[in-house]
């Protein structure tokens, strides 16, 4: 297992210390579906958004596993899973591709405000006609003098209603293959970038998402991230970060849920015995523990391989599959152990169950992860 440094431990402790305040009011926000701007400022004041970026942009220069270690602490201590999800989107959607692939001038212009959290970021990949088959996107970007003109619709764009900066993926080539997609960094006020209305959703309700319409949206060529036609390459890198960062948050959430479930099962007495003494209950809780530890090991193991630059297509897919399904199963088990109380809004477990469903859909559904593993097995 990775040994964390004293500095990394201190950063995580500091984040966990504000976790309760970050999560305060999460039940009300779940009902009203309001983005917590106050808590966002508090989070920006911690060092979380700085973690993986170079010091010259205001970052802390931490590697992927260490960044995940902080995020796990956020998941453990903050009960607002929507805020946690928006925070992971902030880290990976624009900052990570810009940092790795962007030109120096683009980084100088945008990275400092992303790193200090004063600019909120989003990425627009999915379209109404295709999320799983995202590379077959319809949104086009056509060269025009010193710009590209973007036309198309994007859906389910997390953070969009509150975002200042968008990374939008669009088709620049006629061929259907992987070399025809390009990533663009677009400011919110750019003419032709129009946001759809608020979309009600099942869970993660304090993390808003929206449609993004691109209607003859002119984007200067210098706002291309990386090279023209390298969008697939960039997206592959971003998806690795997105999966590892957002699901390690779930690992933290699962640990918090496990602790609450153990405590409840030990004190809830039925027919003169704590329910934890019923093997049916204790085994269910053991399954929660095994799933949590398996997901954690896979996520950090994969992150170390990513850090070393190894091929990780299968490992990322397995990690995503395990962690998202583990979180869903753990939330369902917690509701069951709490019985009728688990079904009430008061304990927050029904909310956690609704939140956990998102994980088996975003960043590539369970079915798509299995397809990927099958393809890598040459099936």
């Amino acid at each position: 297992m990775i040994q964390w440094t004293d500095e990394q431990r201190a950063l995580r402790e500091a984040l966990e210390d504000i976790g309760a305040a970050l999560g305060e009011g999460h039940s009300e926000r779940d009902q009203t579906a309001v983005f917590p701007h106050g808590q966002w400022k508090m989070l920006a004041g911690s060092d979380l958004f700085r973690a993986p970026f170079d010091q010259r942009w205001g970052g802390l220069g931490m590697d992927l596993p260490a960044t995940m270690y902080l995020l796990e602490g956020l998941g453990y201590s903050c009960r607002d899973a929507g805020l946690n999800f928006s925070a992971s989107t902030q880290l990976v959607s624009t900052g990570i591709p810009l940092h790795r692939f962007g030109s120096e001038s683009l980084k100088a212009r945008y990275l400092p405000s992303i790193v200090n959290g004063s600019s909120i970021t989003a990425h627009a990949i999915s379209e109404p006609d295709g999320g799983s088959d995202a590379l077959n996107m319809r949104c086009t970007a056509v060269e025009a003098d010193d710009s590209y003109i973007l036309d198309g619709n994007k859906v389910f764009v997390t953070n969009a209603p509150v975002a200042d900066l968008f990374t939008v993926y669009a088709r620049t080539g006629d061929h259907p293959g992987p070399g025809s997609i390009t990533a663009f960094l677009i400011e919110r006020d750019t003419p032709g970038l129009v946001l759809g209305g608020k979309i009600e959703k099942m869970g993660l309700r304090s993390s808003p998402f929206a449609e993004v319409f691109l209607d003859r949206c002119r984007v200067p060529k210098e706002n291309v991230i990386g090279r023209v036609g390298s969008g697939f390459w960039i997206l592959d890198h971003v998806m690795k970060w997105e999966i590892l960062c957002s699901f390690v948050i779930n690992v933290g959430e699962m640990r918090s849920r496990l602790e609450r479930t153990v405590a409840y099962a030990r004190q809830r007495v039925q027919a003169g015995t704590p329910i934890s003494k019923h093997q049916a209950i204790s085994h269910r809780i053991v399954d929660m523990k095994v799933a949590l530890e398996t997901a954690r090991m896979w996520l950090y193991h994969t992150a170390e391989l990513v850090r070393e630059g190894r091929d990780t297509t299968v490992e990322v897919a397995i990690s995503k599959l395990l962690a998202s399904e583990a979180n869903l199963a753990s939330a369902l088990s917690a509701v069951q152990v709490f019985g009728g109380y688990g079904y009430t809004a008061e304990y927050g477990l029904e909310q956690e169950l609704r939140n956990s469903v998102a994980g088996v859909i975003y960043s590539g559904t369970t079915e798509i992860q299995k397809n990927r593993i099958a393809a890598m097995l040459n099936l």
Partner: protein
Amino acid sequence: MSTIRELQEHITETYLPDVDPSELDRELDLLDSGVVDSLGVLRLIAWIDKRYGLALGNADVTLDDFRTISAISDLIDRERRPVARPM
């Protein structure tokens, strides 16, 4: 066996089972012709990691490095050379 020949064999075996390896043009655009799709690129990366022990994740690699057999061969030669490169 030369890297080009190994690549011709691997690509025909994996993506074009009906083609004779020696007939596969080393300059054919594998991406635009649809021989290698996005998952195919990831499978190539996995094969290169396994076959040559090359970790391409931190390398200065672009999609163009996977466009033709010649380009992939150049990439492998380049990454095999022990040069110091900023990460």
